[in-house]
């Protein structure tokens, strides 16, 4: 036995060595396969992206087109932003693949929340990174630009690797802001991380414009974040973090309001941009506040409506790149407790910011279809407010205009204002307009129910009319034109008023919308 052992001893060592080599070979083979798959995904993504953009170059100007103050960027020095596909990374998320493609320039192109001092051409080149971000699910691809602005404290930590932060995962000590812009360069959403919010609070308190007495209409947890675009040319690196540039431009490109910690962590949830899907998608400058995301039914109804509901999209189109922001919130206390379910209001200090608030006790007790109806109704108000403000500079429509606007819808609204309805307020005039266009709410609700309500087949037009007219039955239009119409009610003629009042509770009671999955 001992002799046999000694004669095999040199070979015994070979067994584990061969085993280890096999494992290594197998592992390498697997990695190679993974790489091939990743290359394929990135190649497909590149092709898709080129189709979306027509192969046109991306320039820094797309982010700067809404410059509100400060110097404009000289056209001659506008930079091309190149996508570095060779260093693109892809990784798996739940049910989808994410691809991140770095953007590079010959000079310096960064975003910051502070302007660059004119005397100081030294640029902190790691202050932000911008990447193309692509999400691929089965048959559905979406893209946006993601900019990560790093907080000052974060950058001073030893051993930080800013480039390691991605859409899905950030370093443990990461603090900063992530901004999302659609492929047209329009702001979509943002999120704050860590201490950056306190840095910004401090920064805001130093500004006399921002240091204002916040009113109830302006959510306490909302902050205006100024965003600057900084570009440098003919730069020479000085150390690993800084560079000197022959020319530096710093442009204020507007401020973004971030409420709470900001937009949902997933900017794709019901909020597609640059997609390859159906053509009725719109790019929405909306913020779904964390209060919505924390309310199961409010989130359910809103995200389902945002998922390409044609009428809801048409109402929110007013917030597409027109410089208006719309924020959805759930609130414990409304403007006029206890009877309001939903309300649409604005920031009195910045009237391009409009809020749709849902009352918490309402969303907790109402079925999703009724919340959807309230959202459609409030979105209609938001739409009319935006239209009026864009043309007249006020939410009221008056005869201060010098030229009748081309917009036919606005003309219709103006006609209502000018009809001098006795006993009407601004809100009543809106309701009169909504009543005249009740089909928007009815169609929006039908589409919602058709897609998501398992009891859809049991409803008829009167059920949807009942739900849509709820709260609008006091309008003059309803009283004059709808209330006494004769409609079919279970095979019997009945007034629309009676039918609607009785079928509204039926649809509320019978509706079955899955808000769990």
């Amino acid at each position: 036995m001992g002799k046999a052992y000694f004669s095999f001893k040199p070979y015994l060592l070979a067994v584990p060595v061969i085993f280890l080599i096999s494992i290594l070979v197998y592992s390498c083979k697997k990695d190679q396969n993974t790489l091939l798959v990743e290359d394929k995904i990135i190649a497909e993504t590149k092709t898709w992206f080129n189709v979306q953009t027509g192969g046109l170059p991306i320039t820094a100007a797309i982010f700067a087109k809404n410059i509100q103050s400060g110097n404009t960027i000289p056209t001659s020095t506008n930079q091309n932003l190149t996508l570095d596909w060779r260093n693109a990374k892809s990784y798996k998320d739940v049910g989808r693949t994410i691809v991140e493609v770095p953007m590079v320039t010959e000079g310096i192109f960064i975003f910051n929340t502070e302007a660059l001092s004119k005397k100081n051409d030294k640029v902190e080149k790691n202050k932000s990174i911008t990447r193309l971000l692509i999400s691929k699910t089965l048959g559905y691809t979406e893209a946006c630009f993601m900019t990560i602005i790093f907080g000052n404290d974060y950058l001073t930590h030893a051993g930080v690797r800013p480039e390691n932060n991605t859409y899905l995962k950030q370093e443990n000590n990461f603090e900063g802001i992530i901004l999302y812009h659609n492929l047209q360069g329009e702001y979509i959403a943002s999120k704050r991380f860590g201490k950056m919010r306190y840095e910004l609070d401090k920064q805001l308190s130093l500004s006399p414009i921002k240091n204002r007495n916040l009113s109830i209409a302006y959510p306490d947890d909302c902050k205006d974040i100024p965003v600057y675009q900084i570009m440098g040319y003919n730069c020479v690196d000085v150390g690993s973090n800084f560079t000197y540039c022959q020319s530096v431009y710093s442009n204020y490109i507007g401020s973004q309001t971030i409420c709470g910690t900001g937009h949902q962590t997933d900017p794709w949830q019901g909020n597609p941009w640059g997609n390859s899907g159906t053509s009725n998608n719109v790019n929405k400058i909306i913020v779904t506040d964390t209060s919505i995301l924390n309310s199961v039914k409010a989130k359910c109804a809103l995200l389902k409506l945002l998922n390409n509901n044609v009428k809801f999209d048409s109402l929110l189109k007013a917030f597409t790149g027109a410089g208006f922001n719309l924020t959805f919130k759930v609130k414990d206390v409304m403007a006029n407790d206890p009877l309001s379910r939903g309300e649409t209001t604005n920031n009195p200090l910045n009237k391009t910011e409009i809020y749709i608030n849902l009352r918490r006790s309402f969303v907790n007790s109402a079925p999703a279809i009724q919340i959807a109806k309230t959202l459609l109704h409030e979105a209609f108000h938001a739409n009319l407010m935006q239209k009026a403000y864009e043309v007249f500079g006020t939410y009221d429509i008056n005869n201060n205009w010098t030229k009748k606007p081309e917009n036919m819808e606005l003309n219709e609204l103006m006609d209502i204002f000018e009809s001098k309805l006795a006993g009407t307020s601004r809100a009543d005039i809106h309701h009169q307009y909504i009543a005249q266009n009740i089909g928007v709410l009815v169609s929006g609700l039908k589409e919602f129910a058709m897609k998501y309500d398992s009891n859809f087949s049991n409803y008829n037009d009167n059920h949807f009319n009942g739900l849509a007219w709820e709260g609008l039955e006091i309008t003059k239009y309803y009283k004059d034109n709808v209330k006494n119409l004769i409609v079919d009610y279970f095979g019997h003629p009945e007034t629309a008023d009676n039918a609607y009042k009785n079928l509204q509770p039926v649809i509320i009671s019978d509706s079955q919308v899955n808000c769990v999955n």
Partner: protein
Amino acid sequence: MKNLLVFLGLIFLMNLCLAQSRGVTPMHEFFQQYADSTIIIEYSTQSFEPPSYKIISKKSGILNCFYYKAIDSGLLKLYNRKLAQIPDTLRAFLQLKKNNFRNEPASINIFFNIVAINPDITEKMWLGISKFKPWQLLDDKSYPECSAVVMDGGSSIMHLITKKEIKTLVYYAPKYYEEQCPGNKNRQGIIGIELLFSRYIPIKESVF
């Protein structure tokens, strides 16, 4: 100048906020006929639900509180299909009849109730309301609307009833506008009066 006048006229007309109230009902007329003076707060809703009311009334120096709320628990049971198997048409017309009854303008009927409150407390409530001089209050149609905007903010509605008249005052989202454009005594008045009604007649107004 002409444009300015038209504009001011429009602003004035736009501020006539009467549409939210369901107006004078047989219940209002009852109090006008049988009481000396009555104050009613109307709670309108953003739904087909009929409004509810809280009432304080004075007759021969004695104060009483009442409320009107058209709740029909039997109707709610009818809507719930799981509770009873009823043929659709039969159910639909049962609902219709019950709902139509409930939607009738407020009157002295089964939905009308007295609120049992100690006379001292009622006196305290009346005195509290009187401090806001309700009979001298003006409503939204008498002053320019605040530039802040809220849609679906809801209205506060108060009916002041005497033998001589029934006066309805409508305030659109008074709490919101008092916060945005503070200092309006009329809005402060209705906010204070509503608060007293909520405190002393603690019946839930909210109807979803």
